[in-house]
């Protein structure tokens, strides 16, 4: 799919002479050879639709591609903007198209919309980054790469009839250097013709005065410059989408039926839908893809590489090879890594030492406590021993006393009984 971007020659001939042919050579078949190859590979086209919930993005896509993409209504209560991408394989005659439609979910629904555009920018950048990563690989397969970069961004403007919202301006300003922006006025059947005319002028002048670069249909190729120039003047396209059909005359046409009339989608008097389809698909699809690759992607790549410190020429303005710079950076990084490792090791050693000291301290404390307890214990023990000794002494002196007392008592009794005996005898 990328082959078409790379095989085109540089256009301006350098030191080559023009020569006339004396007969039919046959390289006029070259464009056909190229086209045949691309047809067998298939084409890739990715559209990003930005707009508030309910503004008609999905319906417009269905109408544009004449099919039903099975979308479901989103809630209005998303906490942040999400991007939902879905890929479809379409085929018309022998052309196979891998179409990816990316929808913003919840755009404009939050109370605080300051972050809204950032998610979109991030999504677009991520696709560029993927491609860049693939391109920089050693073993790469760009030939088979599924290109997910956004080729066209349809920005849906609410049909207020007055002017752009500040969210619109801010978002488009952030995106204009990253993607081809095609602004459309959604639900255009709510605006009258004269209001629409004023609205379009107001929108375009606001875009210009804020320096927003929207996609201009290319006018350098004579075959299409006329129609493209005319269409550039009709921007932004006022569109109406509908997949429902209404009978007009004896034909079924895509339309929206109201009590007061029928708005026909493909009627150029009613809305600019046909113009959008013409421009987006029939005339400029290839240019949109080319601009994405040669302008937006190159810009992203250049900025990204410069950000990482790569330059084409060094301070002395000598050409620098990307490899040398990379190696230098790599060495720098490895050294930094080593330094950090060393630092961490030092810190670790330090901590270990500290811990050891702490533990030693704790050990000493414990030891001290142990000694103290031991001492106390000894003291208690000796005290108790003393007490016991004194108790024993008391006991022995008591028993001595008891023995003595008993002896005395015994003697006294004997003496008493002798006395009694004596008394009795005396009687």
């Amino acid at each position: 799919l990328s082959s078409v971007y790379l095989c085109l020659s540089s256009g301006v001939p350098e030191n080559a002479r023009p020569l006339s042919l004396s007969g039919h050579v046959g390289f006029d078949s070259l464009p056909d050879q190229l086209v045949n190859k691309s047809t067998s590979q298939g084409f890739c086209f990715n559209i990003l639709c930005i707009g508030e919930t309910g503004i008609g993005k999905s319906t417009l896509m269905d109408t544009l591609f004449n099919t039903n993409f099975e979308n479901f209504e989103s809630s209005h209560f998303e906490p942040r903007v999400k991007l939902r991408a879905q890929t479809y394989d379409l085929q018309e005659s022998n052309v196979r198209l891998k179409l990816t439609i990316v929808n913003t979910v919840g755009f404009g629904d939050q109370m605080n919309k300051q972050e809204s555009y950032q998610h979109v920018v991030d999504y677009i950048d991520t696709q560029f980054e993927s491609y860049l990563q693939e391109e920089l690989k050693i073993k790469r397969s760009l030939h088979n790469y599924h290109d997910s970069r956004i080729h066209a961004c349809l920005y849906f403007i609410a049909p207020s009839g007055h002017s752009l919202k500040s969210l619109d301006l801010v978002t488009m300003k952030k995106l204009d250097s990253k993607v081809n922006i095609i602004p459309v006025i959604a639900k255009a059947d709510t605006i009258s013709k004269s209001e629409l005319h004023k609205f379009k002028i107001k929108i375009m002048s606001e875009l210009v005065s804020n320096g927003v670069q929207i996609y201009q249909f290319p006018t350098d190729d004579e075959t299409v410059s006329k129609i493209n120039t005319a269409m550039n003047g009709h921007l932004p396209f006022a569109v109406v989408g509908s997949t429902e059909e209404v009978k007009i005359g004896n034909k079924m046409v895509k339309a929206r039926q109201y009590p007061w009339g029928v708005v026909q989608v493909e009627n150029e008097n009613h809305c600019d839908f046909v113009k959008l389809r013409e421009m987006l698909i029939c005339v400029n699809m290839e240019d949109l893809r080319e601009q994405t690759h040669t302008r937006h992607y190159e810009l992203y790549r250049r900025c990204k590489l410069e950000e990482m410190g790569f330059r084409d020429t060094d301070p002395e303005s000598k050409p620098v090879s990307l490899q040398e710079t990379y190696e230098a950076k790599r060495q720098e990084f490895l050294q930094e890594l080593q330094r950090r490792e060393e630092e961490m090791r030092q810190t670790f050693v330090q901590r270990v030492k500290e811990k050891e000291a702490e533990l030693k301290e704790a050990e000493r404390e414990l030891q001290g406590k142990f000694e103290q307890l031991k001492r106390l214990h000894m003291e208690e023990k000796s005290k108790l021993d003393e007490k016991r000794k004194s108790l024993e002494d008391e006991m022995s002196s008591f028993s001595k006393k008891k023995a003595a007392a008993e002896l005395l008592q015994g003697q006294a009794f004997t003496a008493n009984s002798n006395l009694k005996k004596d008394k009795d005898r005396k009687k």
Partner: protein
Amino acid sequence: MGGRDLFGYVGIEAVLDQMRRKTMKAGFEFNIMVVGQSGLGKSTLVNTLFKSKVSRKSCTPSYEEKISRTVHLKSVSHIIEEKGVKMRLTVIDTPGFGDQINNENCWDPIVKYINEQYEKYLTEELHITRKRRIPDTRVHCCVYFLPATGHRLRPIDVEFMKRLGKIVSIVPVIAKADTLTMDERLDFKQRIRQDLQASGIRVYPQKEYDEDVEDRIRNDKIRENIPFAVVGTDKEHQVNGNKVLGRKTKWGIIEVENVAHCEFANLRDLLVRSHLQDLKDVTHYIHYETYRVRRLNESNASVSGLSALPLENGITEKYEAQSQL
């Protein structure tokens, strides 16, 4: 996500016309190298192929038929246009090839040239700010002229094609084939094909790069027929009331564009009318990528400090290292 039916006209097929318009506006580049000993009719053949004096011989005023001492490469570019299709055609000549007494390594300057063109393209591709369209000087096709000996491939043929078949698309042709009868020609071709296979030489169209069954069938027919036996001339003669390109001899007129006489028309169809874009694609997606892989890998391993580009690898290294920390 299978193929969907469209309910009505969308306009997707218009993209083919868009592409056609853009490529016609931008023009095409084609670089063809001719290799072979002097006197095999290289210049004449190239002129006949492109129906104009595109070879160096024809447009260098001071050209002399000299056998040069060494092999050097000379290229000359022309812009030719047909039915609105502009092509910048560069013909790279290799005078001196195979003309020395000692022809060892006579392919070196050629290999060097081809790799230099890959290097130029790679350098531009690696620039931060790069051109919108990188100028393509890479050799898309190398036509190798075999003398019509009728025997087999010579050592120089084998050595050359073995080496170059790895880095460029080689289309071998039997030069000045009007010295061979039909039978001799068939035998010669068969022996050459055997020799090619025995030596492991891959010539265009290489089997491995057939994209689908249709391709394979188409290319098999070509592979059964190579090398094409060609005759070149820029002179016209009257044959049966028609003006034809031909070589007039005492025994008849060899009609260059008559497939009963020689296979010039087959060669022209292959190189120009049907496979030109494919030659460029094979050069870009296969030979160039092979060079790029080799180059980036060897820079990675070299001591001098030139490193490979894979920022992707570098970034994963970074994440791994950081997570270790």
